[in-house]
């Protein structure tokens, strides 16, 4: 057996890390953050040229035609670098939805555009606070027009198109809307992490085309969120890895009472627990990547498990990251808060960790029946 990534996949990971170390340093992340720029256009262009946007897109649509294991490797690196680009919105959500249920024309137009870096996409589902439920969707699609409001939409202010969950008749459909077209008003919203910007999208009779079958919108959305959860979990795991390493280096090199603070048992034992958390999360992530790649029956359970454990591992890590840094960890100048903010955003973006717990238990109960 070999429940691990292949040497080729690890090489891809290592190349990706080298590239991001150079092109998405924490000072670059900070530039984007402080300028409130939303994303790094240079980095977006760079990763497009490297082909990362089309890693899992079939070659006929301009992609590299690799699988999800390769995409998971890249997602991990995006996460560890806190890369300030709309990668998840475009690749895990928009591209994935179109790959799953798009018609050939849609694939040609959008997948090709994504793979080349010309199109930024996103998925717009929520409209209000609380958990996403069928009953909480008010946006309506009829006669080729979309009307309603979506927020928060990750990367909604910089995206070229959005895939929108809307009511159609008595059911729901997904529709594609050109965000640069008519009937679309968008506003950047204040959020806790300016490198993963959020927006409000207001549609007023905006022209829209259906993605997938009429009435399939809710089911397809859930399926896309499940698949995206696997990749988002790798981002979270990557973030946890990096935060752990930075914290580890700090406590080993910071002295108090004549010794490295990393020699104090209260810190050592917490690092041990954080390490354990993270390794369990990594194992769940591997399982989920395997299930995604093989489209296994366990995908729903594995994806939720990965999302929950990697999300919690990242969140727990960043809280201790600040605490173990002491006072400086709470300053703007140190990078801890960039991780703290990102961890929280990733824990909310495609549904909170609590919502994933609900999805997991629902599936487990079904499986147990």
């Amino acid at each position: 057996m070999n429940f691990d990534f292949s040497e080729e996949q690890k090489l891809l990971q290592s190349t990706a890390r080298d590239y991001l170390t150079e092109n998405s340093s924490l000072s670059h992340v900070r530039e984007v953050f402080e300028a409130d720029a939303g994303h790094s256009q240079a980095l977006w262009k760079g990763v497009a040229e490297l082909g990362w946007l089309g890693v899992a897109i079939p070659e006929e649509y301009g992609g590299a035609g690799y699988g999800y294991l390769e995409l998971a490797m890249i997602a991990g690196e995006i996460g560890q670098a806190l890369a300030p680009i709309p990668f998840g919105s475009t690749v895990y959500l928009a591209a994935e939805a179109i790959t799953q249920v798009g018609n050939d024309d849609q694939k040609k137009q959008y997948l090709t555009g994504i793979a080349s870096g010309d199109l930024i996409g996103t998925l717009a589902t929520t409209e209000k606070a609380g958990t996403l439920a069928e009953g909480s969707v008010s946006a309506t699609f009829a006669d080729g027009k979309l009307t309603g409001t979506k927020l928060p939409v990750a990367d909604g202010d910089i995206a070229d198109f959005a895939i929108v969950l809307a009511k159609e008749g008595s059911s729901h459909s997904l529709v594609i809307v050109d965000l640069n077209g008519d009937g679309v008003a968008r506003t950047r919203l204040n959020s806790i992490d300016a490198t993963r910007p959020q927006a409000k999208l207001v549609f007023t009779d905006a022209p829209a085309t259906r993605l997938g079958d009429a009435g399939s919108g809710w089911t397809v959305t859930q399926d896309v969120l499940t698949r995206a959860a696997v990749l988002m979990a790798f981002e979270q795991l990557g973030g946890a890895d990096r935060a752990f390493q930075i914290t580890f280096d700090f406590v080993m090199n910071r002295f108090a009472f004549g010794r490295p603070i990393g020699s104090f048992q209260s810190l050592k034992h917490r690092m041990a627990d954080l390490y354990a958390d993270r390794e369990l999360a990594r194992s769940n992530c591997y399982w989920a990547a395997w299930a995604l790649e093989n489209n296994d029956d366990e995908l729903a359970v594995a994806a939720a498990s990965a999302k929950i454990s990697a999300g919690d591992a990242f969140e727990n890590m960043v809280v201790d990251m600040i605490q173990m840094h002491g006072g400086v960890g709470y300053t703007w100048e140190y990078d801890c808060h960039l991780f703290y903010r990102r961890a929280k955003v990733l824990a909310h973006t495609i549904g909170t960790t609590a919502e994933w717990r609900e999805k997991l238990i629902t599936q487990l109960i079904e499986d147990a029946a």
Partner: protein
Amino acid sequence: MDFNDSPEEATYRAKVRTWLDANATLRDPDASKINMLDEAEGDLIAKAKAWQAHKTKEGWACLRWPKEFGGQDATTMESVIFGQEEGRYDIPPSIYGIGHGMLGPTIMAHGTDEQKERFLPSMVKGDEVWCQLFSEPDAGSDLAGLKTSAVKEGDDWVINGQKIWTTGAQFCKWGMLVARTDTNAAKHAGLTYFIVDMEDPGIDIRPIKQMNGASGFNEVFFTDVRTPDTNRLGAVGDGWRVAITTLMNERSSIGSGGGGGAGIKDLIKQAQDVEINGRPGIEDGGVRRKIADFAVRRSGLKYTGQRGLSALSQGQTPGPEASIGKLVAAIMGLEMGAFGMELQGAAGVLSGDDSLGDPTWQQTYMAMPGLRLAGGTDEILRNIISERVLGMPGEPRIDKGKPFKDIPSGTAR
């Protein structure tokens, strides 16, 4: 067992109220969130100074201090009662806590007669504000590891180095500083305590931007700052003992009482305002039990404060209960912030005016990591509780007795 004032306390409280009614305006108790941030700092300082001058004139300043230094020889409980009552009125924020609570008592304990005469009455009156200069970037929890140097030149001391986490440095006239005067001595033995003039041109004050964007503290850089030997407090090399006096007077949180039930009601409302799986969030069993847990800790903090006040009222020293307040409150605050955000679902990442719910949770979540560090980290508080309150042994000290210059400290780069 009661919460009632003793007859003496009731009389005193009535007296306080009478004076406050005549000299200040009651605050609207429903306006729970006061926002003075839109007022310029200079205006606020001026208002605070005016209020303090007025209290001094009328005999309500530094109540617990001896009369000879400008105080009123009042009991601790009377001082607490004044604070409770004053808090009900619309008064400027206090800028004197550190001076009146910690630095003044240090001068009383260790100062010369000249120092007491020169500094204490003006400190009471409030025209000169004071700050504390102990912490350094390389000496956080290990406070005595500080490196800022003071070198004797003639009748002066020349100070070089850097202090950090100084509250209010930008509007203070005086600072109290611990510096290293002998690097060959053991860590605690080479320190000396000084009063410094914050208007010295060698002092550079830079606000520290916190991760939540606010700036409550400063870094203070010292370049050849001179202070006369007459501003030395205590003997040369005795600075640690003097500093301990300051730290022991650190204002306890007694009587603050954990802030009542406001946050709990807000959480209930947040949970009522959102849906979880198509039903009101407040109907969710997990949400309900979690809020119940917060409420239990909150009331535990509140009544722990009441127990401390009772001890004061009975003329006893408050028990060690006070030391657990910040430890518990900061951790709980962080959890409450995160939970409020979680209730908001995907919208929980939105902040400020764009929040789709109560934006307090995001603010709290960004603020609480600071509270867990300021004024003693969680770890230091746990050390204090286990060692000073419970009497457990200290960690083995490998820096004991070594010359300071041979002890590794700070951050290796």
